[in-house]
C-alpha cells in the first residue's frame, strides 16, 4: 500500500465550515422524518468510516472486524441502561471505556501481524464477538436483539429523528475536526511514516507498536461511542450490528471513498448508504447492482473517489 500524500497545512478550516453550514441547512429541505433517518444513517456510517480510515488509510492496518466495536458499544449501553438501570450518559462512557480496554488488549496481541494475517485476525475477532452477542440470550436477547431505552441526560430526553439528527451531525463534524487535527499533528505524521515503511519509521525513532495500538484503540473507542448513541436512537440493538457484513460495508466505504482521505470517507459513506435506498426500485437486482458498483468503482478509480477527483482537479486529497 502506498503512503498517503502530505496534505497542505490544514489551517484553512473552510471546507469543514462549509460542510457544517450545509448540515445546518439540510433540515430545511428534508421533507419528512424518513429523510432525516437516512441522513442520520449516513452521518453514523461516515463517522465510523472516518474512524476506520485512520486505521486503514493512515496507519495502514487493515481491520475486517471493526463493526464488532460498533456493536459492542451499542450492546454495552443497551445492557447497562436496560438491564441495570444505569443513567445513559454514564453507560455511554463506561461502554466506550470498556471497548477501549478490550481494543487495547486485543491490539497489543494482534497488531504485530501484517497484511492478510492481520485481516484474518480482525475478521476472526469480529465473528467471535457477533457469535457471542447472538448466543448469550440471557444477557443480550439473542439473535433477535433487545430493546434500548431512550437517551436522557439529567431528565432531558433526546428522542425523534430531528433531535437525533443534530446530535449525529455534530458528532460527524467533531470527528472530521479531530481526525483532521490528528492527521496534521506530529502523531499523524508518525502514522503516515509508519504506513510508508515501518522499518524506516523505526529508524527515525517512531515507536511503531505503540502508535499502532493507540490508533487502534482510538478508532475502536470512536466506533463504540457512535454505537452506543445509535442504539439509543434506533431503540433496539441486534447482533447484526457487530457482524461481518457490517464490517465489510465499513471497509468498502473507506476504500471506495478513498483511503487516507477524510472527505473520502464521508463521500464513500454517503454513496454506499444511499445506494440501497436508490437501488430499491430495481426489484431483486439490488445485490447485482451494488456489487457492480463496487467492482466498477475500484477498477476505474482504484485510489477511491475522493483522491481520484482531487487528482483530476489538481488539488491534493485532504
Amino acid at each position, binding site marked *: 500500500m502506498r503512503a498517503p500524500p502530505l496534505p497542505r497545512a490544514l489551517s484553512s478550516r473552510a471546507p469543514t465550515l462549509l460542510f457544517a453550514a450545509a448540515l445546518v441547512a439540510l433540515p430545511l429541505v428534508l*421533507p*419528512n*422524518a*424518513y*429523510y432525516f*433517518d437516512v441522513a442520520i*444513517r449516513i452521518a453514523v456510517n461516515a463517522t465510523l468510516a472516518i474512524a476506520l480510515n485512520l486505521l486503514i488509510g493512515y496507519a495502514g492496518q487493515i481491520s475486517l472486524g471493526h463493526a464488532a466495536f460498533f456493536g459492542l458499544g451499542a450492546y454495552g449501553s443497551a445492557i447497562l441502561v436496560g438491564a441495570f438501570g444505569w443513567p445513559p450518559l454514564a453507560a455511554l462512557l463506561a461502554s466506550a471505556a470498556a471497548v477501549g480496554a478490550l481494543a487495547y488488549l486485543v491490539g497489543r496481541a494482534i497488531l504485530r501481524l501484517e497484511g492478510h494475517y492481520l485481516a484474518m485476525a480482525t475478521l476472526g475477532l469480529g465473528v467471535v464477538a457477533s457469535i457471542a452477542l*447472538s*448466543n448469550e*440470550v440471557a444477557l443480550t436477547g*439473542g*439473535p*433477535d*436483539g433487545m*430493546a434500548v431505552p431512550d437517551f436522557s441526560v439529567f431528565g432531558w430526553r433526546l428522542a425523534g*429523528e430531528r433531535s437525533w439528527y443534530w446530535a449525529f451531525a455534530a458528532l460527524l463534524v467533531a470527528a472530521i475536526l479531530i481526525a483532521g487535527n490528528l492527521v496534521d499533528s506530529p502523531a499523524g505524521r508518525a502514522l503516515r511514516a509508519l504506513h510508508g515503511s515501518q522499518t524506516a519509521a523505526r529508524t527515525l525513532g517512531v515507536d511503531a507498536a505503540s502508535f499502532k495500538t493507540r490508533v487502534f484503540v482510538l478508532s475502536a473507542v470512536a466506533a463504540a461511542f457512535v454505537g452506543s448513541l445509535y442504539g439509543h436512537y*434506533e*431503540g*433496539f440493538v*441486534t447482533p*447484526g*450490528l457487530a457482524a461481518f457484513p457490517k464490517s465489510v460495508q465499513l471497509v468498502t466505504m473507506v476504500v471506495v471513498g478513498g483511503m487516507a482521505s477524510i472527505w473520502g470517507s464521508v463521500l464513500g459513506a454517503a454513496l454506499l448508504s444511499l445506494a*440501497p*435506498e436508490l*437501488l*430499491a*426500485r*430495481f*426489484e*431483486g437486482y*439490488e*445485490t447485482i447492482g451494488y456489487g457492480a458498483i463496487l467492482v466498477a468503482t475500484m477498477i476505474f478509480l482504484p485510489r477511491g473517489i475522493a483522491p481520484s477527483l482531487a487528482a483530476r482537479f489538481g488539488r491534493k486529497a485532504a
Partner: protein
Amino acid sequence: MGRLSRAGSAWRASLAAAALILAGCAAHAAEPIKIGSVLSATGPAAYLGDPELKTLQIYVDRINAEGGLLGRPIKLVAYDDGSEAAQANGFAKRLIEDDRVDALIGGSTTGSTMAMYPLAERAEIPFVSLAAGVVISEPVKKWLFKVAHSDRMAAERVFADATKRGLTKIALLSETSGFGQSGRKETLVAAAKAGVAILADETYGPKDADVTAQLAKIRGVDGVQAIFVFGMGEGPAVVAKDIAQLGITLPVYQSHGVASAEFIRLAGAAAEGERFPAAAILIPEQLDPADPQRAVLSDYVALFVAKTGGDVSTFGGHARDAFFIWKAAVERAGSVDKAKVRDEIEKTTGFVGTGGLVSMSPQDHLGLSASAFRMIEIRDGKWRLAD
C-alpha cells in the same frame, strides 16, 4: 434489500388488465389505498417472506381487478429487509413517513416485527404481523395484531401429541436463528407444564452442512424417547437427512417451520414418518367437507399454485389471512381511518382463515386457538392428518 414487485410478463399483463378494468370502473382517478409491507424476501427468512410477498401481490391484484376496496384501488408498497431486523426498522419509517401507507402488513420474523412496532405505535397505524413469536401478542399491544400460531402453541401441540403416545423424555435440537431460539425458550416452558423432560438441549446453525456431531451426542444420552427439532427452512432438512444417516429410529417431531413442500423436497426419504404441527392449509382435501376452512383453503392453494407454480406453505397463508382480516375491517369501518380500522380489526369474529377460525378481542390480538393447529405426519412423501 429493497423495493419488490413481481417479475415476468405475466404479472405485467395482469397489472395492465387490472389497470384497464379500473380505468373502466372509475370515472375519475381515485386515490389508492396503500398497504405497507416489510418482508424478508431475501436472507435466511426468505423461506417465509417469499410466499408472503407473492400471496399479497396475488390478492392485491385480484381485489383491484374486482373493483378495488371502497371503490379505490389498493397499492402494495413492499420492501425487503433481507432478514435483518435493523433494516426492517428503516423501511418501516420509510413506509410510514414517506410512502404514507394506511396500514402495515408484514414482519416475516418476530425480530423484524418487534423492531417495527414502536414506530407503528408512535404513528398510530394498524400493524398486522405475519410472524410467530409469542411476544408479539403477549402482552397485548394496542396497534399490533397477529395471524400466525405462536411458537408456544407449536411446542404445546407437539407435547400434547407426544404425551398421548407415552413419549415424555425428549431431546431438543434448536436452530440458532431468532425463530429457533425463541422456539427453544417456549419449548422449555411448555415442557415443564406438560411434564416432559428435556434430556438434551443442542443447537445447530441455519446454514450448517452437517449436524451428525450434535446427533451423535444426543444418541449417547440414555433414555431419550423422541427428538424435537425447532428450526425453519433448509436447516431441518439437513437434520432430517442426518438423522436417517445415523440410523436413529426414534420418533422425530419438527416445528411449524417445516410447513412447506420445500422441506419434503430437500429432505427426501428422510422426512418419512416425521410429525409437525401446522395449519390445515397443508391438507385441505383431508378435512371434513363440512369444515368451513376447507373451501377457503382449497381456493387459496389452487390460486397460489396456478399463479406462481411454487410450493404451498402456511406462511403464504398467513399473508392471505392478514390481508383479508384488514380488508374486512376496512369494509366494516367504511374508511381507512387508522383508529377506526384498528378497532374493527380487534372486533374480528368468526373469520375463516387459512390458519384457523379467528376471533379477536381487546385481550387477544391473535384469535386462534391451539386446536387450529393440526398434527401432520409425512407419509409417502405427502402430508397426512395424524390425529
